[in-house]
């Protein structure tokens, strides 16, 4: 009885409505496709329905992985699509921005209600992030229209390098502080009155935290926005450490702010893509829906999974995708032939071996920690 009652309470109420709509929609598509023939040179309704459902499921999976690993979905979507499909890079990056922003948008409500995210900090940083992201999106459209195949190759190779760098950064762990220490609050930050106490469940107390260097953070976030808007990546991987290390925002608050900020800031960056036709409605819509449902359900369903375990797999995916991007970029440039199957397989199995080794080491460490605690 309680389970049924829970279905009619937020967030399960809206999730139920969305799932029901999804089931009815795809059932209608597959029913209508029975007996329907494809036009000459085109796809059948069934084929399109399967592709669309596949996109939704992939987006849902990306959202779930991204939620557990604490990154934005764009970091996975954009490089994978650019490395392993022939889809035009501008279409991929435009859709990547949709993927990056919607898991953030849907998490905005709960974060705001709980006070974990700080609207004042988010608005302050969005004011500078938005300028950078908009300029980045405009630059992406300009590069795509003026550089042609060379631009396609350059974008793939640059993204491959960024992704490999991110993979190394994730391996090193990234220096982050749960509760950064603030020795001095500058006048500008003090005048903004940014503080917002929040309830920290792990210690069962309400915590008020000081912040500093808001001006410098705004400046750096403008650059982060430029990168995010240009590559359609999302930028949680950069926004969280910048807030945490420069502005001294506690780690949990920085992560929550990052989602709110991406949702808000990418509402600026996404429009140049939408207005130039780079977002194709039927292609982008299933990705949007997957992010929204995955964003809500992911955190709830898979809260028990160890984040460190997922993080190792994520690093493996990033390195393999990075290899794919550089190889594809070189191929588009005409500097290298398509990667032969044996080389793809060698790289894949080498990375897989590393993932297995890292997971085993992670499990041993977890077991040792549990034994020590017992």
């Amino acid at each position, binding site marked *: 009885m309680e389970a049924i009652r829970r279905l009619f309470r937020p967030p399960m109420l809206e999730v139920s409505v969305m799932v029901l709509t999804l089931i009815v929609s795809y059932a209608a598509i597959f029913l209508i496709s029975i007996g329907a023939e494809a036009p000459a040179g085109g796809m059948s*309704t069934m084929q399109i329905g399967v592709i669309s459902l596949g996109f939704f499921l992939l987006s849902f999976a990306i959202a779930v992985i991204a939620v557990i690993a604490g990154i934005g979905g764009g970091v996975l979507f954009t490089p994978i699509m650019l490395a392993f499909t022939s889809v035009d890079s501008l279409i991929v990056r435009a859709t990547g921005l949709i993927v990056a922003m919607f898991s953030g948008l849907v998490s905005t409500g709960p974060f*705001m209600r709980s006070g974990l995210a700080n609207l004042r900090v988010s608005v302050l940083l969005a004011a500078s992030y938005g300028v950078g992201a908009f300029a980045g999106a405009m630059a992406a459209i300009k590069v795509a229209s003026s550089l042609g195949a060379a631009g396609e190759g350059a974008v793939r190779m640059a993204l491959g390098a960024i992704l490999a760098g991110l993979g190394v950064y994730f391996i090193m762990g990234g220096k982050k502080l749960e509760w950064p220490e603030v020795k001095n609050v500058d006048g500008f930050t003090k005048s903004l009155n940014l503080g917002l106490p929040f309830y920290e469940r792990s210690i069962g*107390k*309400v915590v008020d935290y000081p912040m500093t260097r808001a001006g410098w953070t705004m400046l750096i976030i403008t650059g982060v926005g430029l990168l995010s808007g240009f590559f359609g990546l999302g930028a949680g991987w950069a926004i969280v450490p910048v807030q945490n290390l420069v502005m001294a925002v506690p780690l949990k608050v920085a992560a929550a702010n990052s989602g709110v900020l991406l949702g808000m800031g990418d*509402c600026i960056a996404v429009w140049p893509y939408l*207005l130039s036709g780079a977002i194709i409605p039927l292609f982008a819509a299933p990705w949007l829906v997957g992010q929204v449902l995955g964003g809500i359900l992911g955190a709830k369903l898979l809260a028990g999974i160890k984040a460190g375990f997922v993080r190792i797999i994520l690093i493996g995916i990033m390195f393999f995708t990075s290899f794919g991007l550089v190889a594809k970029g070189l191929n588009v440039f005409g500097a290298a032939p398509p990667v032969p199957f044996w080389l793809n397989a060698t790289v894949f199995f080498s990375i897989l071996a590393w993932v297995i080794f890292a997971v085993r080491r992670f499990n041993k460490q977890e077991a040792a920690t549990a034994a020590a605690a017992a």
Partner: protein
Amino acid sequence: MERTETLRMPAMPISQIVYGEIVYWITIAAAIVCTVGPALALIFMDSNVMDPSFTFGAIFAGKSASDVWALSQTGGFPGGHFYVSNLLTGDGFTQFGLALGCGVALPGLLGATIAFAKSKSFGFVVLSLWVAALIFFSASGVVSMH
């Protein structure tokens, strides 16, 4: 400066709640529209701006966005706000969902602006309006390369 810990949770600023609720519920609405839209596009295949049968093939063939839109009934991209005159078509309705979701922060920020003004946080009134203006200009295409 030390962080302080207490047991009593202060009341959440109304601006937080207003922004969070507006963004959350419009995002859900956009997701529902984007679920129904593609289904309508495939069920009423002839009533679309862009024929879905050829759209995915062109995208996976690596065609540019303008080449993909060249296959549409209009012979080219009809503009980002083409849903205004095509709301009853499947892809027009889907584009409406996308536009709704991509502009969701604008009403949220306007709501937060009012709440900031009521609490006399005028600095954040200005910042919220600045971000809202960026979204508005970006969405209206006033600042555009085309």
